[in-house]
């Protein structure tokens, strides 16, 4: 089977790279073994939230001071500024409305009731422009009784810092009796499914919310709406007679799953081929070029392409693997940027900057992956499989994934 481009990994990077290539008429395939980080995401994409322990106000400015090896530096500051505008437009064409500015972080309210800086936020959630002001003074937090994955007390505690008078109310609805009876069913995706099924439930729910929130300025709810379509969220907002603030629940994330579904749908509508549940096992190299990859489901049928993109994620997605004494890239045996000495991988404090978080595939300045010290001409790496940054500490996770993947797509299109 022959494609123009094959992308290994169908997370945020693989999908956005594939969409951009397909939008430009490339015949693309994505091979993805399974769940990606986007299943769990908070609803916001970070560009740069922290630098040297300090909160960043203007990510575009702050990026200039990052070390040379950082993926952003390799993309180049000018390109970053441009691609940061392009990214939300690409998402928008997939039906995902994100808003925010790359030269000024806004804030979102985390499940711990903490204001966190970020770049783009999906429109389910509320953007706060300042981290020390909550615009309402009297708030009610509503939760489904028996739903343990939303921490009303933490949110209440967090909001106290902003002098907000917060009340918590739990309520039951007969539609949830069935899932409540099975002790492990009361999870956000199952609640979302109930609302996806019919308008009546949503109507009844909205009425209840309006009743319970009488006398309050704002309603706070867990983000358990709209697994397959955004309409549920839009409808709900129009039915509730006051501002609605949604807060992420314990993952998996309902808006995250919806984002994954819509991105994949967009890719396929553009003519892309998405092999779900297939695993790329190895590659065939010839003269510093990757000619084909073999996958688990395709057996002897090799998948060939002019260019390949490795977007297989970090340790969590098995894009990088550590065994007792070895660190490696498991699919193509690429060079790794990381410490050989396994004793150096981890820091003894959980909340410290963990060395392993910086590890990833080595590339040249054009994101061509290195194998045995030499760049493979037609193999690019993008997203969290790249090393050179601790995206967690920096608050740059999705930013690195989106911007490197769009940049790589441009390299291929050149």
């Amino acid at each position, binding site marked *: 089977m022959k494609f123009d481009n094959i992308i290994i990994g169908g997370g945020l990077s693989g999908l956005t790279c594939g969409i951009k290539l397909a939008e430009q008429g490339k015949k693309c395939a994505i091979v993805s073994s399974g769940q990606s*980080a986007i299943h*769990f*995401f*908070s609803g916001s994409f970070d560009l740069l939230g922290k630098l040297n322990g300090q909160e960043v106000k203007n990510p575009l400015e702050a990026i200039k001071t990052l070390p040379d090896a950082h993926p952003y530096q390799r993309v180049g500051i000018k390109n970053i500024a441009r691609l940061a505008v392009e990214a939300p437009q690409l998402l928008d064409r997939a039906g995902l409305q994100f808003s925010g500015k790359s030269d000024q972080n806004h804030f979102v309210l*985390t*499940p*711990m009731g*903490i204001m*966190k800086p970020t770049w783009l936020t999906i429109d389910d959630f509320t953007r706060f422009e300042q981290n020390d002001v909550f615009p309402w003074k009297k708030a009610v937090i509503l939760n489904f*009784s*028996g739903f*343990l*994955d939303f*921490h*009303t*007390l*933490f949110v*209440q*505690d967090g909001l106290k810092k902003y002098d907000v008078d917060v009340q918590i109310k739990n309520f039951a609805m007969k539609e949830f*009796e069935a899932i*409540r*009876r099975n*002790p*492990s069913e*009361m999870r956000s995706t199952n609640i979302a499914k109930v609302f996806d099924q019919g308008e009546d439930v949503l109507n009844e729910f909205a009425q209840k919310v309006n009743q319970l929130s009488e006398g309050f300025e704002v309603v706070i709810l867990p983000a358990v709406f709209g697994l397959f379509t955004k309409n549920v969220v839009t409808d709900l907002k129009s039915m509730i007679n006051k501002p609605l603030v949604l807060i*992420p629940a*314990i*993952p998996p994330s309902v808006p995250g799953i919806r984002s994954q579904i819509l991105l994949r749908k967009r890719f396929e509508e553009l003519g892309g081929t998405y092999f779900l549940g297939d695993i790329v096992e190895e590659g065939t190299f010839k003269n510093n070029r990757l000619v084909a990859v073999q996958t688990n489901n395709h057996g002897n049928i090799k998948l060939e392409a002019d260019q390949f993109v490795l977007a297989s994620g*970090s*340790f*969590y997605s*098995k894009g990088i*693997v*550590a*065994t*007792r004494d070895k660190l490696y890239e498991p699919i193509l045996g690429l060079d790794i940027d990381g410490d050989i000495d*396994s*004793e150096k*991988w*981890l820091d*003894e*404090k*959980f*909340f410290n900057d*963990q060395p*392993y*978080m910086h590890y990833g595939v080595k590339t040249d300045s054009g994101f061509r992956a290195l194998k045995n010290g030499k760049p493979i001409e037609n193999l690019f790496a993008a997203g969290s499989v790249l090393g050179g940054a601790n995206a*967690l500490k920096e*608050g740059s*996770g999705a930013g690195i994934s989106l911007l490197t993947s769009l940049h790589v797509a441009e390299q291929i299109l050149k």
Partner: protein
Amino acid sequence: MNKNISKEYDVIIIGGGVTGAGTARDCAMRGLSVLLVERHDFATGATGRNHGLLHSGARYAVTDHESAAECIKENMILRRIANHCVEENDGLFITLPEDDIAFQSQFVDACKTAGIGTEILDPDFARRIEPSVNPDLIGAVKVPDGSVDPFRLTMSNALDARIHGAVLLTQHEVKGIVKEQDRAIGVELFNHETKQNVNYYGKIIVNAGGIWGHHIAKLAGVNINMFPAKGSLLIFGHRVNKMVINRCRKPSNADILVPGDTICLIGTTSERIPYDQIDNMFVSRQDVDVLIREGVKLSPTLATTRILRAYAGVRPLVAADNDPSGRSISRGIVLLDHQERDGLSGFITITGGKLMTYRLMAEEATDLICKKLAVDKQCETAEKSLPGAEKSEHPLSIATEKVYTGANISQKSAKDRHGTLAKNILNGDDYEDSLVCECEGVSIAEVKYAINELHVNNLIDLRRRTRVGMGTCQGELCACRAAGLLCESFEKPGKAKDDLANFLQERWKGMLPITWGEGINEIQFTSWIYEGIYGLKPDNN
């Protein structure tokens, strides 16, 4: 709840390990008024950091006859009085090609002398009854070893002490011993919760501080020379073996594989450490290497089994000779009457021994206390079952009796964990049945029961009581759910956030030496959830 408690007692017991809890129970059952004080939580010393082997005594049969005889006697008693804490798995002592098969007959003879039943098995038969065993074995002997859950055993003793009137204070650290001339008359405590100092008075002060007993004795002005020997262990993610597997040779490193609940444990190493290191329980990569290398000889599948955690404990041995490994020292019970030994009355030390022999240790200590207080009452702990054991005569009187019905996963797991006490876990209501921890089947009701009745102050305590966060997911999401519930019982929710952060750090400590493969993938996931999405910090207030 501790506001109106008395300041004076017959006995004050220092230490909430199994020895302290067992002694509190025995004293309370003999009608004494008892206060037990523990600096952290129950079972945070050696008791919560051991192998959980219900020794048959066979391990010591050749080298230490007295310990072997004590073990088999207590083994049989614990099967009776604490059957909810014991798994009667039996054990194998296997001989590998590299071992001397001649040791086997010496071993069997020594077991016989100590009263330990043995059965020599044909290697083929051994492979059949224990499929995980190293197939190269050339000899096998079956003995009545078992597994014991140290957390449950300690809590059952503590609960029974409370039922008999004892007062239990966790988070209370002894900072000094109050003396009047040559008599110990009380303890100076620091309350870690309130950060206040408080004194309590007792006719007899019992030092049951395990290895820390050395320091506690010093506070009283007497000297006990303790021998800190650190032992490391690994917990594997699933239960490989049905029976305990030992090497049939003189006790050595990493030669016991103990199954328990859904996991199994390989241990231990033994290393002498300086006394100032007893609170620094790290496990080195070298320890991990030895444990895996030797463990694989007992059961080859361990080579590919996921390791969940590594931890270490310190054996409370009282120095006797200069053996650098601390192994040929007697595991015997040490009961010191400091009046006779040092001229300090009102102060005794009970230490040494084993988890296995805690009851006997408690009995000997309580006998001495009764003699000193001229109380004439026989010990009954060998006959009366602990609360939670099937035939217990002491149903918990505190909670309203709710009938234990149905058999869903959480109820079954709760029954495994709390024995007949599970009936005190309210249920029947859908909300209370909701699962907090999916891998271990812990419900809201069980968490609430633990918070209300089992002296739970934080998430780490909760893990010890209910196994929340002990399963294969290692607490990724259940910790957060449990924190939400704990939050309801805290005055300040901010504390629950720090508590969650501490829990993650504590768990990290156990994973650090073994974090690779699935472990590193999961820790990355956990970090993204808690630090990335939730914005949790080490200090949240």
